[in-house]
């Protein structure tokens, strides 16, 4: 670590701090990896001698927090590693990610929780916080040693990739989670309804002759899990919500005081089932891209608070696995590096969201769900932040992706808004070239 690492002043920047509802031109002072000042107006002259970074024309936001990524390690290192996934996260402006436990071995013991955390620390690109499995090997049969795993650093429990089929077991998991202080994340789906489906069931699946996954598969799953959350009094977070019907149930549950939170993913906001029309497997994920009506409902739900946050559901696969006819290709898309730009395009440029709204949905709101201290630029907080050029248009290209996954639906599409640099505890994790130029200015 060089002497100046973790110490700098960012000047001439537009500050977006959702924890203070602050949107103003100002400055940010970082000392020893923490924010020591972040206010409107120019940085004070004199005082401590810190490197000054000219960030005119950029916005600074708390580092993004992603509650839903698949980094595939241990076990599937050909798809992604914690190191490559972390680099992709930093490139997307993320400073905290929650990794899903569907690895091999699954994250179902404290030892594997430690492994993921340590690999994350070694990569040093973002805070890698593991979600631990609900059941051994995600088999839906028996509970794991949750206390051990939470002590080791697990921040949530989930069998993501699939639901916990046994409702009675899931009820008791939810009840037990109340003494752990971590939320249970549910992948809500009735698998007997999704069966062998590969895309949303509707006019496009009919036209393409592909087996459908009805929206009802998700709605039925969410209905069950909401009732179990109500029964147990636990904190439950619904992953990757895709359908209007599920949103209506979540909205009602929140009105009734059930402790439920929910997320959606950028791809659901930018694409619909019609994008599957060319059988391009980059548009295949689970839950699937749904109808235009569902997409509209997701946008409304982000606006009215039914949805709390946006998570990428970054799910890399090797090019060989994904480069197959639609039916055969695995589910999942990569999205860490494009998440902000895609949401910015859809919600801010083409929608009615303010930039501060979007920053909140991607930082403070998800941080609160896992009880993390992220999502703020208040003095005293860790200096996790990202600098963004909201005017720049760019086109994601395969060769620029830092993720090992190439299954990105935004490749070749023009997006507006680009992360220029990301800092973790005041240390640059993305944007070396930009930072050199900015210091030189």
């Amino acid at each position, binding site marked *: 670590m060089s002497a100046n690492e973790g110490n700098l002043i960012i000047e001439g920047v537009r500050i977006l701090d959702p924890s203070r509802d602050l949107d103003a031109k100002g400055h940010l002072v970082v000392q020893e990896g923490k924010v020591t000042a972040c206010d409107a107006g120019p940085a004070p002259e004199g005082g401590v001698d810190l490197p000054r970074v000219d960030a005119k024309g950029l916005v600074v936001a708390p580092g993004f927090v992603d509650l839903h990524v698949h980094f595939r390690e241990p076990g599937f290192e050909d798809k992604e590693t914690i190191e490559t996934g972390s680099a992709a996260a930093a490139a997307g402006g993320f400073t905290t990610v929650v990794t899903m436990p569907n690895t091999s071995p699954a994250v179902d013991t404290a030892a594997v929780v430690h492994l993921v955390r340590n690999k994350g620390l070694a990569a040093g690109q973002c805070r890698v916080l593991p979600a631990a499995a609900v059941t051994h090997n995600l088999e839906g049969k028996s509970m794991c040693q949750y206390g051990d795993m939470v002590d080791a650093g697990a921040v949530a429990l989930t069998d993501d990739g699939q639901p916990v089929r046994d409702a009675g077991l899931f009820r008791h998991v939810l009840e037990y989670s109340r003494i752990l202080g971590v939320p249970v994340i549910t992948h809500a789906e009735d698998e007997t309804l999704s069966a062998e489906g590969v895309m949303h*069931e*509707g*006019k496009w*699946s*009919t*036209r*393409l*002759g*592909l*087996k*459908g996954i*009805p929206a009802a598969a998700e709605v039925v799953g969410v209905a069950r899990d909401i009732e179990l959350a109500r029964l147990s009094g636990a904190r439950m977070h619904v992953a990757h919500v895709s359908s209007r019907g599920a949103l209506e149930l979540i909205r009602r549950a929140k009105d009734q005081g059930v402790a439920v939170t929910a997320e959606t993913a950028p791809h659901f906001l930018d694409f619909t089932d019609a994008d599957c029309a*060319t*059988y391009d497997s980059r548009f295949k994920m689970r839950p699937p891209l749904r109808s235009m009506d569902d997409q509209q409902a997701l946008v409304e739900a982000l606006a009215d608070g039914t949805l709390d946050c946006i998570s990428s559901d970054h799910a890399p696969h090797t090019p*060989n696995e994904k*480069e*197959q*006819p*639609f*039916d*055969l290709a695995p589910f999942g898309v990569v999205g860490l590096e494009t998440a902000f730009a895609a949401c910015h395009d859809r919600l801010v440029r083409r929608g009615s969201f303010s930039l501060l709204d979007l920053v909140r949905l991607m930082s403070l709101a998800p941080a609160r769900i896992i009880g993390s201290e992220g999502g703020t630029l208040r003095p005293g907080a860790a200096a996790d932040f990202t600098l963004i050029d909201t005017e720049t248009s760019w086109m994601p290209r395969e060769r620029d992706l830092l993720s090992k996954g190439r299954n990105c639906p935004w490749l070749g599409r023009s997006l507006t808004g680009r992360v220029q640099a990301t800092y973790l505890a005041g240390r640059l994790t993305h944007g070396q070239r930009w930072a050199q130029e900015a210091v030189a200015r």
Partner: protein
Amino acid sequence: MLRTKDLLDLESCTSAELLSILDTGTAFRRVMDRPIPKVPVLRGRTIANLFFENSTRTRISFELAEKRLNADVVNFSASGSSLAKGETLKDTVDNILAMKVDLIVIRHGQSGAPHYLAERIPAGVVNAGDGMHEHPTQGLLDMMTMRQKLGSLDGKRVTIVGDISHSRVARSNIWGLTKLGAQVTVCGPPPLIPMEIEAMGCTVETNLEKAVRDADCINVLRIQLERQENNLFPGNREYARAYRVEDKVIAECRSHCFVMHPGPMNRDVEISSSVADGDRQVILDQVSNGVAVRMAVLYLLSGGAPESLGDTIA
């Protein structure tokens, strides 16, 4: 000549292209009635028939069409092939193309597999049936048969009865027929009618008597036993009770209405033997037309022009 190197589906064909194929098919149909039913328009061309899914009649029909055009033909079927050894579809086809093949005819269990190939190889691709998506040459032979009976298809009413959900024949029929102005009704038990199929331009009627009352043609689809095992309907006997096309159904139809079936038939399940063997069916005409219309597709995709055919086969 067609606009593209491939025939992947009827959805993306224009009505002019459909008519051009059908008219060319009619010309080739006349060739088939000659003592020597061959025209050497594809001499020196090589066509590979890749059947990744079982087929008897479609494979034979393509092979005959190719041989009657004097093309060199190679056949490939999935069983015992390198596919079983884990080779990808793309690698399999690249290997075949390296042997200098001009046109690929592919039957595949996955919807979109021909599209996947067509995007990745320079050779033309003819879809001989992909998953539940389309079976364009079956659609064309059905339309050719209907035109022989009805003349123009504009304003004609065609009812398709059976398992619409899993049927690529139904989808190709709907696209092709509606493009030529026909009105298509699909009929079958609700679990076998796919969601929002009306968006493809047809109407849905789950009652067989109502569905066929005004029809000019009834196209009966094969019911597959495995659907019953998946609990999509109660069983063959129950199916036959509500949806079998039999004499008493035909008796209520318009007098000129005729019956088609793409085969293979489950006699007395979706169609009664009396109808299958009766004077209202044109099932074997469909088979003959299949060869002719496939000759037309292969000829046109190889750069042949309908107008130059006159000299060739005169």
